[in-house]
């Protein structure tokens, strides 16, 4: 569905904008998770084919030709694992943010100037 892939693209753009312009570290992480969601929407919508159904054989689709009635299962599988990894990465980033807060007592990105050039 083109609508959903455009929606995912807009979400990616908004998340990127947020990551680049926000000064608060937590807001940057939120921007990252928005990018994540948008990217997953785009990938799954590429696998969709109009008029077809989910690749699960049950009573509702019994006897139909699987090759002609199912969508592509590979993007679903990829995204499924990507979501779990996204959670782990978010948790790791948040722990870094907590550590940075302990170090400088601040979450604003301007206060971290050791590596500035």
């Amino acid at each position, binding site marked *: 569905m083109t609508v959903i892939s455009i929606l995912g693209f807009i979400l990616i753009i908004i998340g990127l904008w947020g990551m680049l312009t926000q000064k608060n570290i937590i807001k940057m992480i939120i921007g990252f998770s928005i990018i994540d969601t948008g990217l997953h929407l785009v990938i799954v919508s590429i696998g969709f084919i109009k008029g077809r*159904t*989910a690749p699960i054989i*049950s*009573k509702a689709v019994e006897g139909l030709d699987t090759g002609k009635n199912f969508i592509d299962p590979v993007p679903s599988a990829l995204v499924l694992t990507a979501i779990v990894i996204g959670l782990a990465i978010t948790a790791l980033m948040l722990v870094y943010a907590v550590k940075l807060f302990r170090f400088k007592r601040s979450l604003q990105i301007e206060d971290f100037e050791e590596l500035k050039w």
Partner: protein
Amino acid sequence: MDSSAIAKVIYDISALMAVSGIVLSFIRLIKGPTIADRAVSLDVMTIIAISIIVYIAAITGRIIYLDVALVYGLISFLGVVAIARYLERGF
């Protein structure tokens, strides 16, 4: 027009009404002066979203989609409780 076609139209209208319910609660999420208001609006939105998931399962004829609604209801309950416990410093 036979009765099942009319019924389909009524189901569609009901789904649209549910979606507009989500929109209205989202307005409360935008306005909500406190965090508790926003959490209430999140709660209502998830319940309406469960109804919409069941509607999708019905019109596409795939009963297995109902499992998604179950997980959804459960986890959203946890989210609201977590926000409440964060507010009252219970972690």
